[in-house]
Structure formats: structure tokens, C-alpha cells
């Protein structure tokens, strides 16, 4: 596996906070879970209606999804398993590594 399989089960989740309260809750959650924010690049740029794409580890994504469901916040899973996408979309890298 590429990168020692470190992204196995990692997810990319899109959440668009509908109001200031949701935006604040999301910021707190991201800080707690120490997720990798893809969009926007900084937590300080999250406001209501901001598209936030977040890369969360296997463990963190479970906690995040539970939080989103409990808070009744809408979300969309953009990538279900990041490791699989990396392996699939970089075949030549895998080939290189095998060589």
C-alpha cells in the first residue's frame, strides 16, 4: 500500500453550516478532532454558508459523523475511503513503488 496504508478508512466530508451557531459548533469540533481542513484552509474562515471540506481519519470521522447526526446538521461524504482513491488514482506511483 502507498503511504503505509495510513489513509485507510479516512473520509472527506462536506458540511455547509446553515447559521452562525452551526458554524461555531463546527469550528469547535474541527479543533477538538484536529481534522485536516481542505476547504477553507483555515478554521477562522468558516462562517455560515461556507462550504467546508474536511479530511478526517477513520476514528475522527466516526466521531464527526455522530456529532453531525446528533446536531442534525446536513453533510455529504465526498470520499468514503481516501486510501482507495489514492491507490486507484495513482497507478503509476504504485507501479513505481513496486519497481
Amino acid at each position, binding site marked *: 500500500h502507498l503511504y503505509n496504508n495510513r489513509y485507510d478508512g479516512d473520509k472527506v466530508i462536506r458540511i455547509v453550516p446553515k447559521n452562525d451557531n452551526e458554524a461555531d459548533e463546527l469550528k469547535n469540533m474541527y479543533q477538538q478532532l484536529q481534522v485536516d481542513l481542505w476547504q477553507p*484552509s483555515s478554521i477562522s474562515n468558516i462562517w455560515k454558508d461556507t462550504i467546508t471540506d474536511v479530511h478526517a481519519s477513520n476514528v475522527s470521522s466516526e466521531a464527526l459523523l455522530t456529532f453531525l447526526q446528533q446536531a442534525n446538521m446536513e453533510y455529504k461524504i465526498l470520499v468514503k475511503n481516501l486510501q482507495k482513491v489514492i491507490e486507484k488514482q495513482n497507478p503509476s506511483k504504485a507501479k513505481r513503488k513496486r519497481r
Partner: protein
Amino acid sequence: SLSKYDYEDYHTLEEIEKWMHHMNRTHSNLVQMFSIGTSYEGRPLYVLKLGTKPSTFRKSYKREIWMDCGVHAREWIGPAFCQWFVKEAINTYKSDRVMKKILDFLYIYVMPVLNPDGYRYSWTHDRFWRKTRSKMRFNCYGVDANRNWKIRFCEEGASLNPCDNTYCGPYAESEPEVKAVAQFIHKRRKFIKIYMTFHAYAQMVLYPYSYQYDAIPNFKCVESAAQKAVQAINSAYGVRYRHGPASSTLYLSSGSSIDWVYNNGIPYSFAFELRDTGYYGFVLPQGLIRPTCIETTLAVKNITMHLLKKC
């Protein structure tokens, strides 16, 4: 084999450097390669200068354009685009009258990987590494190379925490990569008329200011160039890009290269956020390198031609 270099694949830093040497060796009439310094880990910061030597009938100097890619390590489409653009410039110089005009009248500096340490790290350890690789406090590494410029340093949209992805650094230009580019551009600020930096992802063409909502003094000229650039992008595959000031179109951020460059008197300063809008994000498939590069090359040529006409 470098003669069969695959521009529709992502390449390691070592492959890109070998490719740069090859282009320099095999196209000496159009390409000059040089280094503007070394990275934190001691790697050379290579730049390719594209263009023909000015003939005696023309002005003794040529106006210049700067393009950089690979500022944020995980945005692999950036270095892929810079390489594609160099290939296009060389291959179409004789057949495309627009490219011929551009290379005859202007010099284009292309820096395919501004942050080589980070880019290499994104291949070997962490695919989603963004920053440079300098060692910081709290056992954290790296600085955001697009928050480290000497313009409103570490204000809006930048973090003081060395472990954050948008860490601005201990002081402006603390990163040797940023300092080297800043010194080069500052020295050539009378000649450089366009600055373009290539990032991902969002599908946007952005211009100053990043750090405030005020409009730039030459807003009309820059806005017109950006609008034509997104139209050019759309003309290839119908992909829609947004355009506008970075602050209102994307978000507020301080210490960015486009603001620093603009503040140093370079009238056209753009940041491209290439494909996509999040379906793949940073893991844009190799199959999309080609269309992304074709449409972006059209935009770059369009902005460049805008310079050759008077606004």
C-alpha cells in the same frame, strides 16, 4: 526516457528536476535554467526562463512574467500545469503565432515547484502535506508559504500556531523558499508585469487584495483580464471558473504572494485555483491533468496577450 515524458502523470520532485535539466539542455534557444536559492532542506530552487533573446531591432529589454506552482505541497495539479505550460510553449513556438509573439516579446519565468521540501514529503510521507518543512516550536514542522510574505504579516486568515496548516511563520520571509522568490521578484520588479501563482482547488481566478475588501487602483484592467481568462477556460471544455478579488471571492488572508507582488508595483497579479470544486479535491485523477492544463494554458495566454495590448 525524458523524450517520452508523460505530461498526463504526476511526477516526483526528482523526475521534475531531471525534466528541467533535460529541457534546458535540449531547447537552449528558448529555455534557460537557473537556481534562485536553496530550500530549508538544502534543495535548489530551480526556475526556467522561457523566451527568445531580443533582436537588435526590438527593445533591448523585454517585459517579464513570473509563474509559480507547487507552493502548497499537496496541490499536485500545480507542478503538473507548470510543466505542461513549458512543454506547450516550446512545442508550439513555431506553429502558434500567439505563443511566438509571447516568447519573442516577453520572458516568462516558470518555477514548477516553489516548495520542493514539502512536495517531496507529500510523495514520501504525507500525501496531504501543505506547508514547507522547516522545524518549528512544539515539535511541529512547516510554514504556510502563502502566509509568509511581508504584507500584513499574520493578520486575517493566518495562524500563529506552528502546528496549524496556515501557520504564518515566526516572521515574514522566514522561509528560504519565500525569501528567494521575493528577492528575485523585487530585483526585477521594473520588468515583471504579470505574476501568476497556481493553486488548487476551487476553480477560481483571483486577484488582490487578499487581506482587505478594498478594490485595487487598477481594478478595471485587472478585472477585465480575469474575466477574459475565465471565458478562455470555459471555451475549452465548458468548465466554469469564478473570478474576482481573493478577499471576497475566496476568503480573507494575509501575507499572501499576490498582495506582496502587487504592493511591489507589479500591476497584474493573479492566483489560480485550478480544478476541481471538491469531487476529488487534492486527489485529482491523472485523467483530468490534460483538460485542466489545456484550459489553463488558454487563460495564461489570454492574460499575457492582455499585457501586450494596452488596457
